């Protein structure tokens, strides 16, 4: 298959996945579009190196996450992680099945959003992969660390978020 055909097929199969990743990192539609285009360019540049060792989805996520780090590199500190209440995996962030329902309240979603945006760039990347429904093993393959290391990091982030959200809840109830 020619590179051009392979590329077009890859994008056709994964464009929604890439767009979602872009939307995690940018609230502005124009920025999302710019980043989407940047991811496509980097997929093209890296396509010759695809040997099929990793699943194509893991490969796509690597390019997307690495691009997001480079793309937002212009403003690391201002990089935000945008979440939507209808995200299928949102409850996994706090291990709370009832979260989706609770988060329909705009204020709570906003609170979670604020807390997520206080996380470091790497933690944001981990959470974005979690929101995509990737397993710990797949996240480890994307980032390049061990599965146990991913588990520790995600456990810590979840703990931080839970504490902060619970604290926020308590403050409001008082």
């Amino acid at each position, binding site marked *: 298959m020619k590179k*051009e055909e392979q*590329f*077009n097929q890859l*994008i056709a199969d994964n464009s929604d996945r890439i*767009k979602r990743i*872009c*939307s995690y990192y940018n609230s502005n*539609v124009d920025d*999302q*579009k710019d980043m*989407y*285009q940047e991811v*496509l*360019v*980097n*997929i*093209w*540049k*890296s396509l010759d*190196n*695809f040997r099929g060792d990793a699943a194509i989805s893991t*490969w796509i996520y*690597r*390019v997307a*996450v*690495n*691009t997001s*780090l*480079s793309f937002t*590199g212009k403003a*690391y500190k201002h990089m935000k992680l945008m979440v939507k209440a209808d995200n299928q995996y949102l409850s996994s962030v706090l291990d709370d099945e009832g979260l989706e329902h609770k988060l329909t309240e705009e204020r709570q979603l906003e609170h979670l959003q604020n807390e997520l945006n206080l996380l*470091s*760039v*790497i933690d944001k*990347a981990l959470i974005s992969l979690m929101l995509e429904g990737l397993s710990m093993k797949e996240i480890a*393959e*994307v*980032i*390049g*660390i061990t599965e146990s*290391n991913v588990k*520790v*990091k995600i456990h*810590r982030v979840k703990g931080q978020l839970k504490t902060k959200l619970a604290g926020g809840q308590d403050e409001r109830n008082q």
Partner: protein
Amino acid sequence: MKETNKKEQQVRLPELTEKLIKKDKQYAGMSKRLQIMYWILLPVYFILILVHIIDGSPVKDILGSGFFLLAMLNFALLFRYYHKTYNTVDYSQPTLLMLKKAVARYQPFQVKTLWALLGIIFVDLGLVFNSSLGFDVIWVQLVFGGTVLVSIGIGLLIWRVSYKPLRDAARAMIREIEGE
């Protein structure tokens, strides 16, 4: 709302693909042309040195030309290497590996810098030995050395403004990933 977002996020894929193919071709063509130029110029210069030897030119001049030839060869290989390295950043590597490579790429002084230094020394020796150029040795050292120092200074300034923040950010992310 979702529909609007999707529509606005659309990138015209055929146009983008066409642009990417064009860029690839341009890059391949440029690399090829540069390589052809170097590999034609180098033997030509070598033949010129041989002609000087046959004509009985002073040994110093021949040595000087020899050093210029070595400098050209050095810069040709170095340029080729840099061109290849900087244009083929692989974004599909694991994030940690990509960041480590970025840190190495954005270091101001690397082992490869020694190759550039070797090229500069060859040029300097070429200027010193080539008496046909009519340069005074001390004057050459002052002007050439000064130019090299100013160039290094400008290079470091550019690095500090453009590349140091990237290197530092990549380092910080590596520390964070490797922590715990």
